[in-house]
């Protein structure tokens, strides 16, 4: 894999209906699962699959992205045998920022021409899964595919916005539509694509010259008849976290032990930026059940069916249910949270009662005091 496959994490125009959660950050760095950011999943998938050359095409609001990814060392991408790049947009003026990913990849075509690898995995950051990409490459070669799309058969509810895919008997993709399309199919694209590096460059240059803007929507979807585009079936857990509803839904799914075990451990571990937080402390009177709790938390109250990120303080008598409290949040004495999502550094003073609804969690913006 090492010298044959490179990874591209494409953040250009990522679908984003995450509302307040992306007010100051890109979807890639939305905190998830107690200590992760969304992009950790695809980063770890690539690294665990033996890919050691990875580029992140940043687009907007990427300060937190730079901070989080740094040199790539937490994903073991910072050594002599690896390469890690964050490629910010190269634009003449702010109008160019609106251009599609084809334009931005074209601006960085040197990055591709300087690479040695035969194949490229192009993926998004908002797709939560734990996948070994080596069998995908093997499948791609065996099928003689031009492009392989990692797909997931929707057998139970998968919220969020997904592209739908239709395949014929040979597993070749015959139709692909954006989420709002009428295509009647339960097959979803995980937005993980495999193709040869020279084909990618060709698609970038040709499609752009033809007036197209977007790699998948235009360059790929308009050529389904000319290119052999195949579907690889992914069987594991999939979360498409591009809406607030989906964010909340997938966070709550982590509270099932089977999902927690699969998503974080199998087939490979998910890595993130490590912090030196002490272990979580549960004081006398703490009641915790059906929850995930990160290091650095201090729990004096009750936490049920909730996700606590690093460094959260739940004071005496506070009750947290069905909620997500991000890094360094403080929930004051005797306050009640139900169906709430608190962004980082939110302070709930004592005696507050904050409730959202099951399908519509209350969201508190970063650093807010309530």
């Amino acid at each position, binding site marked *: 894999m090492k010298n044959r496959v490179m990874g591209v994490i494409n953040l250009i125009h990522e679908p984003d209906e995450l509302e307040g959660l992306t007010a100051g950050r890109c979807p890639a760095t939305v905190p998830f699962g107690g200590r992760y950011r969304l992009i950790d999943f695809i980063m770890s998938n690539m690294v665990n699959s033996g890919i050691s050359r990875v580029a992140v095409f940043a687009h907007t609001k990427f300060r937190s992205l730079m901070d989080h990814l740094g040199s790539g060392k937490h994903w073991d991408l910072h050594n002599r045998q690896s390469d890690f790049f964050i490629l910010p947009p190269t634009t003449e003026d702010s109008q160019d920022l609106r251009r599609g990913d084809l334009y931005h990849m074209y601006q960085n075509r040197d990055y591709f021409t300087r690479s040695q690898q035969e194949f490229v995995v192009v993926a998004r950051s908002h797709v939560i899964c734990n996948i070994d990409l080596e069998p995908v490459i093997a499948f791609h070669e065996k099928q003689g595919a031009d492009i392989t799309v990692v797909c997931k058969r929707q057998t139970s509810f998968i919220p969020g916005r997904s592209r739908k895919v239709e395949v014929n008997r040979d597993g070749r993709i015959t139709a692909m539509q954006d989420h709002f399309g009428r295509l009647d199919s339960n097959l979803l694209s995980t937005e993980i694509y495999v193709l040869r590096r020279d084909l990618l460059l060709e698609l970038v240059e040709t499609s752009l010259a033809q007036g197209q803007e977007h790699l998948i929507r235009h360059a790929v979807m308009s050529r389904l008849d000319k290119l052999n585009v195949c579907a690889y079936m992914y069987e594991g857990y999939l979360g498409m976290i591009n809406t607030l509803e989906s964010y909340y839904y997938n966070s709550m799914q982590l509270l099932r032990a089977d999902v927690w075990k699969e998503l974080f*451990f199998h087939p490979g571990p998910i890595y993130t930026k490590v912090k030196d937080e002490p272990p979580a402390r549960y004081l006398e009177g703490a009641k915790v059940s059906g929850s*995930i709790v990160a290091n*650095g938390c201090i729990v004096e109250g009750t936490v049920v069916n909730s996700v606590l*990120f690093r460094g959260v303080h739940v004071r005496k008598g506070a009750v947290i249910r069905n909620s997500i409290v991000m890094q360094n949040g403080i929930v004051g004495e005797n306050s009640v949270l139900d169906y709430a999502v608190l962004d980082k550094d939110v302070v709930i003073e004592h005696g507050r009662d904050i409730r959202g609804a099951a399908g519509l969690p209350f969201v508190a913006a970063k650093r807010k005091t309530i």
Partner: protein
Amino acid sequence: MGRKQMVAMLLAGGEGKRLGVLTKDLAKPAVYFGGKYRIIDFTLSNCAHSGIDTVGVLTQYQPLELNRYLGIGSPWGLDRRDGGMAILPPYVKQKGGVWYKGTANAIYQNMGFIDRSDPEYVLVISGDHIYKMDYEKMLAHHKKTGADVTIAGIEVPWKEASRFGVMHVDDEDRITAFEEKPKVPTSNTASMGIYIFSWPVLQRYLIRDEANRLSSNDFGKDILPAMLKDGMNMFVYPFKGYWKDVGTIESLWEANMDLLDDRPLLDLTDPEWRIYSVSPNRPAQYIAPQARIASSIITEGCLIEGEVNRSVIFYGVQAGADSVIRESVVMPNARVGAGAKLYRTIVGDGAVIADGVTIGHPDQSTVTVVGSDEFVANHKTLLEVEPS
């Protein structure tokens, strides 16, 4: 390499015999403590926060896991262009080599390492104590008193004083006498095993001590008494705060339990004095719907389905349904089976306690130890230790 004001020499060769099965394959400084740390993290973090960037770690006994853990020192900010961390094991020279004969001999054999930095002062510390201390303040004290050597001292309860090396001091903190583990103590100022020497003075005494064939080449037994006899300037740096020598099973257990107080004397949460360690990469801990947790500390990667009360749980531990863990310390990646019960037990890393096994008893005061990677189907074979 530029000149350094002070270089730290960290003695990490301790065998830790009294920790029994926990140090069977592990040097004492590498023993786990406090939910995610190893004992040596505390002194290394102290160095990092005290602005010391050159640390020699003297290893000897079972160094494999310790060396692997320390790496190039990056978790403690010791991967530096100038200085940084150096692991200093005994080595073979042209005319043969010898083990470190004693603490002083260990430094003697590495005088070349210290000279490379040409320091004014040398800090000698030990990797088996748990405490937080700013060595910069101690150095300021050393300079102010014009001492040749400064020894950190802590007041211990009188009834425990006979377990320590105690020092007699005058009104100006000048040391007038030493007593090693006195039967009837006449002072309760214990030496914490933390010394700052002016380097030329230490160098002179190390060379002299090495020439003395009768010497046991030990700081406490030989170097310091010799300096006292010669009337060198020796001062105590009085330290107030948490300090614990975790040399025995009981003291290791007690030190872990100390962390569970509502306001522990050793505050691990202080953002100004973080204890750095090699942080494992594990997901946030999962507390199952039927679990019950109180007065405990638990680390990432754990999956808890039973009861945890007054216990310290390290990363990656899984405790099955209806298990009970009370007043216990469970080290990394151990498995506690469904319905298993642990009372006052230290479980080594990777150990497996089978379903339904009970270790200890709710009313008993002894601490039971399960070694690393042990499989326990029956608790009768385990070592029990009376607390002191």
